[in-house]
């Protein structure tokens, strides 16, 4: 299989394709950076809080301590 010579449409649409490519690449980089910041700030941690289940907004630090096990002797 051989590659055909560059078609005229490739040259004509070069600026458009380059612009779309740069825009998409920038979008991916931005989402990645935003994810790093959100994770570092702990913004997304609340969703996994155990007591309230998925979607709970109670921070881990505010959880009530678990009750001590019963120590009655037989």
């Amino acid at each position, binding site marked *: 299989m051989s590659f055909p010579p560059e078609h005229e449409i490739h040259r004509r*649409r070069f*600026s*458009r394709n380059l*612009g779309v490519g740069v825009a998409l690449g920038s979008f991916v980089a931005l989402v990645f950076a*935003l994810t790093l910041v959100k994770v570092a700030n702990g913004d997304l941690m609340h969703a996994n809080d155990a007591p309230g289940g998925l979607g709970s907004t109670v921070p881990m630090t505010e959880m009530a301590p678990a009750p001590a096990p019963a120590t009655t002797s037989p």
Partner: protein
Amino acid sequence: MADIRSFEQPQEAGFGDFVQLLKPRVMSLVVFTAFVGLMVAPVHLHPVEAFTAILFIALGAGASGALNMWWDADIDLVMRRTKGRPVPAGLVAPGEALAIGLALSGISVVMLALATNMLAGALLAFTIFFYAVVYSMWLKRSTPQNIVIGGAAGAFPPMIGWVAATGSISTEAVLMFMLIFMWTPPHFWSLALFMNEDYSKAGVPMLTVTHGKKSTRTHILVYTILLVPVALATSFTSIGGPIYLATSLILNAEFLRGAYRIWKRDEVQAEADKYRVEKSVFKFSLLYLFLHFGALLAEMVLRPYGIGGW
């Protein structure tokens, strides 16, 4: 073997034409006011979050611009000021403008909500809806009050910036909104005075077309008088201070003087000097808004040094 065949097109849109679809000049004002709204808020976002918020507020504004160009292609073609836009110029197909407008609206609203909060995303969605549907599709062609009510769309960005940072609407955000809302009518009507032919040809019921220029001159003066207390009120909130107050006093005095000069003139005088006063007031109105928001930013920047704020 696959090959690409295409038909020759005398004019084909480049990337820049698609950027023009987003009304970059309007976007620059949106970026600036949203940036100030976000920066003067008492809660500070991480720089990446702040950048993302401003970017997608601007992109949302651009999306509504693309939807406006799709809907208004017929009247844009008639008006000298707008006939070079990508859709009436035949560079971008109306369907493409619609698709880009809808896609960017969705992306910008979702990304702003994810980056900041749901209220900011909802406000951006409402702004796009307001500009594209309420203003472009409904008010613009049906009432001479189109600019007055439609001005709300341009007034939302600083409020969205504030909400992106704080998560709630407060007096300061409402006053920033009101400043642009009340500024829009005298700003646009002073433009309409010397662009009247365009609107008349396109059949857009601007005040100059439906009520005449004399009535428009009176409206400019009345709305400028109403703008003054709104602009000054911000001085006495948590984001205001002596810098803003002094700037606002000077700018409002000058804007009032310009509105008074417009009101005093008649068409014969205006025609004689080719609308010199109207054009200068229009240009000054841009500076008026820029310096008001610039003063708010100055208050915020200088506050740590004991200069800004009360």
